[in-house]
């Protein structure tokens, strides 16, 4: 916080606006922390509160509008990309869309406060054909609410944050340990994923050439498409002659499949 406060004081509005813009387009930067620091810098006279809003609100809305436009023109492709980093990519798009639709357009106003949804909301609105002016109105309201909350907190509690910043400086060793524990936790998580995926390696695999040869020879095989993402846009393609196997309802979907035939599965 101390370093951030010093950076904000020196580089001012552009830096906070950049942090807000980057966060809006999905880059994991601590924009909330930058806004808190901007509020504190305003309280001690380093920045002007009005200019903080004048630089950050347009930056956030611009970033959101960019994702909204991409969502609108790429259909579900952008969401598919964003969903790949989720815990369950197959259900991510469908659940996000249904939740967004069910909870209504006002979700956009509060989306900034919900990690994960904050980046997904603008492309979702675009993909779901929300009218651009309606989007801009709701998104601007959300941006003002989000920025106000953090800047005001930084402004009102400026004394507390300065004490907090000094505390962090004094507790440098503790911070180093916290970072180390975090890194170890991340390595453990990656190892767990590695072991989890390792058991999938025993599944037999075939190249596209081998499968094509079997088809040409007239072998009685089944080709099954297990993508979810490819099924949201009209005009999506799949391997000729393949069937759909919905990965979210597997137990039901496989009931009609024969157990005495080779079944070749594919995704994207």
């Amino acid at each position, binding site marked *: 916080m101390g370093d951030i406060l010093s950076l904000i004081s020196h580089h001012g509005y552009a830096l906070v606006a950049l942090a807000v813009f980057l966060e809006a387009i999905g880059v994991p930067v601590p924009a909330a922390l930058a806004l808190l620091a901007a509020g504190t810098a305003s309280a001690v006279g380093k920045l002007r509160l009005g200019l903080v809003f004048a630089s950050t609100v347009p930056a956030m809305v611009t970033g959101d509008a960019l994702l909204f436009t991409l969502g609108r023109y790429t259909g*579900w492709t952008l969401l598919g990309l964003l969903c790949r980093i989720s815990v369950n*990519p*197959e259900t991510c*798009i*469908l659940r996000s*869309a*249904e939740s967004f*639709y069910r909870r209504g*357009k006002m979700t956009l106003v509060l989306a900034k406060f919900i990690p994960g949804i904050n980046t997904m909301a603008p492309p979702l*609105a675009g*993909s*779901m*054909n*929300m*009218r651009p002016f309606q989007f801009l109105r709701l998104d601007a309201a959300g941006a003002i609410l989000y920025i106000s909350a953090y800047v005001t907190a930084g402004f009102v509690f400026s004394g507390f944050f300065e004490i907090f910043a000094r505390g962090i400086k004094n507790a440098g060793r503790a911070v180093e340990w916290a970072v180390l524990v975090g890194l170890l936790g991340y390595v453990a998580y990656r190892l767990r994923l590695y072991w989890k*995926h390792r*058991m*999938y*390696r*025993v*599944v*037999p*695999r*075939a*190249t*596209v*050439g081998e*499968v*094509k040869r079997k088809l040409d020879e007239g072998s009685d095989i089944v*080709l099954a*498409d*297990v*993508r*979810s993402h*490819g*099924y*949201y846009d*009209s*005009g*999506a*393609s*799949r*391997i*000729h*002659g393949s069937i*759909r*196997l919905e*990965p979210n309802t*597997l137990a039901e979907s*496989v009931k009609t*499949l024969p*157990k*005495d035939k*080779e*079944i*070749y*599965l*594919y*995704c*994207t």
Partner: protein
Amino acid sequence: MREATSARVAHWMREQGYDARVIVGGLRAWERSGYQVETVPADDLVQLPKFN
């Protein structure tokens, strides 16, 4: 991990007694090889909600 979904589904199906296998490279490898594809039939498309 490449073929993550198909490998996971194939692993589960094999546990259920199916002779499931994975196509290496998936749809992209198939298309790159110039093999035949088809448009997903309208009945199979998942309809998502739209605001308009």
